[in-house]
């Protein structure tokens, strides 16, 4: 081979390499995980992040979604709003698909990302947290908050209390205290509770607790003085553990103390030991690892040493929420692929997938999660789906939560009016003309 031939061959090889490389590099479905495995809130963040990661690993082990692999891009936020926004900026354009959806995992981060992600045309799924009025898809086309919102949680707790009191008419004159994290998250249920208080005649007592909530003596002294009939809690991190211990110390009955779902994980009750027995919290997924999917994760993911955490923690409350977030993502992507007839979906297509999501009980059965969560059907005017909540109770001896109630519907008369009012105010403030995409 003379020099001219060699040079021609080399040049051809150089030109062809990127073409081959592009062809060989398969399309991937990018999904970031804005998780927090460090800092004061890590005990709550780790199980969720592990559940989400393990479910996506399982999907990839089984060939991906319709044959397309999922690319998980973790970014540590430390549950810090500023860092969360930086994480979003870092991962949003991740190749090849860009971020198909963002799970901010914090109400504060969600509030910051709503305008940014809407402008970047990336859907947000704030699952059971974030801005409640995002239920209205005509105003918030890029934000989804199914399967339930904080306002649904508050409404369901009042319904549960009404049922336990012998009927909603028996709520008249009762006193319900709200112990809440003094942040955007903690303040979410206030309007709902006040509206329901006006409707049913009960009094609402507000008790804010500042971050981090390590010292709550004054709060619980006020509970002791005012003697509310029920205490609701919107707490997070150490605030939950301290509140449950303080409630036990003043002998407040645990069967009249209900936490929102973010105040209802094993990490919240274990430090209180036996005193936490009977503590109640809201739930939108079943607890425990007794589902066929958990067995499959243990076998396929942990069997191959690819688990994100420890096998014996599969099935914790937070872990199961991570799983269901993964399932919702999978089904939204499948739906997007069907709608747009392509496997190389973009964030805008996945938004359409989320908005047309129809996750039936039959499909949950097929996935290996029978009676694990409520079926979900999303539409433009309902980004929150079923909006049903069950009550779970902590068994301190068995060290596990059990669902003890039916799935309650939200109070639509109250919450829908508040959603319409709040979303209309947001639309006006931001010059948005409400319309379905």
């Amino acid at each position, binding site marked *: 081979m003379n020099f001219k031939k060699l040079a021609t061959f080399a040049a051809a090889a150089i030109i062809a390499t990127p073409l081959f490389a592009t062809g060989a590099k398969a399309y991937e479905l990018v999904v970031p995980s804005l998780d927090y495995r460090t*800092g004061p809130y890590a005990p709550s963040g780790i199980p969720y992040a592990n559940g989400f990661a393990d479910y996506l690993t399982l999907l990839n082990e089984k060939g991906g979604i319709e044959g397309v692999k999922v690319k998980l891009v973790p970014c540590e936020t430390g549950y810090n709003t500023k860092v969360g926004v930086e994480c979003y900026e870092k991962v949003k354009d991740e190749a090849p698909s860009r971020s198909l959806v963002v799970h901010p995992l914090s109400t504060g981060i969600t509030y910051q990302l709503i305008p940014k992600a809407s402008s970047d045309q990336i859907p947000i799924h704030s699952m059971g947290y974030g801005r409640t009025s995002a239920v209205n898809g005509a105003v918030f086309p890029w934000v989804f908050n199914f399967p339930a919102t904080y306002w649904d949680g508050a409404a369901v707790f009042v319904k549960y209390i009404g049922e336990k009191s012998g009927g909603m008419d028996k709520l008249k004159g009762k006193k319900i205290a709200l112990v809440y994290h003094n942040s955007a998250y903690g303040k979410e249920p206030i309007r709902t509770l006040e509206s329901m208080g006006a409707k049913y005649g009960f009094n609402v007592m507000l008790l804010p607790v500042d971050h981090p909530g*390590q010292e709550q*003596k*004054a709060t619980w*002294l*006020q509970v002791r003085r005012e003697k509310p009939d029920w205490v609701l809690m919107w707490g997070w991190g*150490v605030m939950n553990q301290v509140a449950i211990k303080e409630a036990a*110390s003043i*002998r407040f009955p645990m069967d009249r103390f209900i936490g929102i779902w973010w105040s209802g994980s094993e990490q919240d009750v274990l430090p209180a030991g036996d005193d936490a027995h009977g503590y109640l919290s809201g739930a939108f997924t079943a607890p425990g690892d007794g589902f066929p999917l958990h067995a499959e994760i243990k076998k396929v993911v942990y069997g191959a040493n690819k688990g994100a955490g420890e096998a014996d923690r599969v099935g914790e409350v937070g872990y199961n929420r991570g799983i269901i977030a993964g399932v919702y993502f999978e089904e939204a992507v499948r739906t997007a692929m069907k709608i747009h007839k392509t496997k190389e979906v973009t964030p805008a297509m996945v938004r359409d997938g989320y908005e047309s999501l129809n996750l039936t009980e039959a499909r949950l059965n097929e996935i290996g999660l029978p009676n694990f969560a409520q079926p979900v059907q999303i539409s433009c005017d309902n980004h929150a789906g079923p909006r049903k909540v069950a009550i779970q109770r902590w068994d301190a001896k068995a060290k596990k939560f059990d669902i003890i109630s039916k799935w309650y519907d939200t109070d639509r008369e109250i919450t829908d009016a508040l959603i319409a009012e709040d979303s209309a105010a947001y639309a006006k403030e931001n010059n948005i003309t409400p319309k379905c995409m």
Partner: protein
Amino acid sequence: MLFLAETVISGLMAGVMYALVALGFVLIFKASGIFNFAQGVMCLFAALALFDFISPGGFMDRWFGFYLPIWLGVIATMGVMIILAWMIERFVLRFLVNQDAIILFMATIGLAYFLEGAGDIMFGSDVKPLDIGIPQGAVDFLLDDYGLYIEKLEIVAAVTATVLVIVLAIFFQKTRVGRALRAVADDHQAALSVGISLHSIWVVVWSVAGIVALVAGIMWGSKSGVQFSLSLIALKALPVLILGGFTSVPGAIIGGLIIGVGEKLAEVYVGPFVGGAIENWFAYVLALVFLVFRPQGLFGEKIIERV
């Protein structure tokens, strides 16, 4: 009236818990002029190490197949804090002798981040329910017979703090090492010129502060479980230090009590009229009001510098 008494007693008890953290700050500041930003993280680190020594699945269990009884675990953790003090002196402070206070302060900020990260890697981020036998819950007979709510844990903390202050007072006033510590605090170079080893003194004082951190870590860990938010309890100690003075052990205690009672009364009686959650910032307001009248704190040394 009973409720007011309850609020005051709860405030006093909470104040003792703050004072336990503040004591560690005072010890190091008194002996070396360093404001140790890492004191809160040292409480966390000590509690994490103790939990690991005495729990199944911890360091001892993994490496030697058994875990330590509580008393031995406490001693082992003291050993860890002494080794940590030696390492801090050897690898951080030794290179910063005679540097400005702000340089030393910044070094302790780095130390705080390092210890927090190391604790995370070594012990994990989970909440660890620490049970070393300290009684929990309300004192039953007071609650049942007199309707008075006082927590057992806080009584134990009050007794522990009293013992700790007596021991520290004896240590500072009556022992050779204590006198040497005070000499170093007054003037590094003068202390060196009379043959006091600055390096040894720093190891001693950081060891003592580490042991005080262990006591505070045990109390706060028993209250809320050992978790990374424990490092934030340093924020509760700051107003105590401002009020009590950075160089006074009794000041830390008295300051803690005033802050504890003040913030509880404010939260319970003023909070409902201004939206609540005022106790955190009220503690700082209270401390700042004291500063107007006594800039050196209640018991701090008045520093007069001639120009």
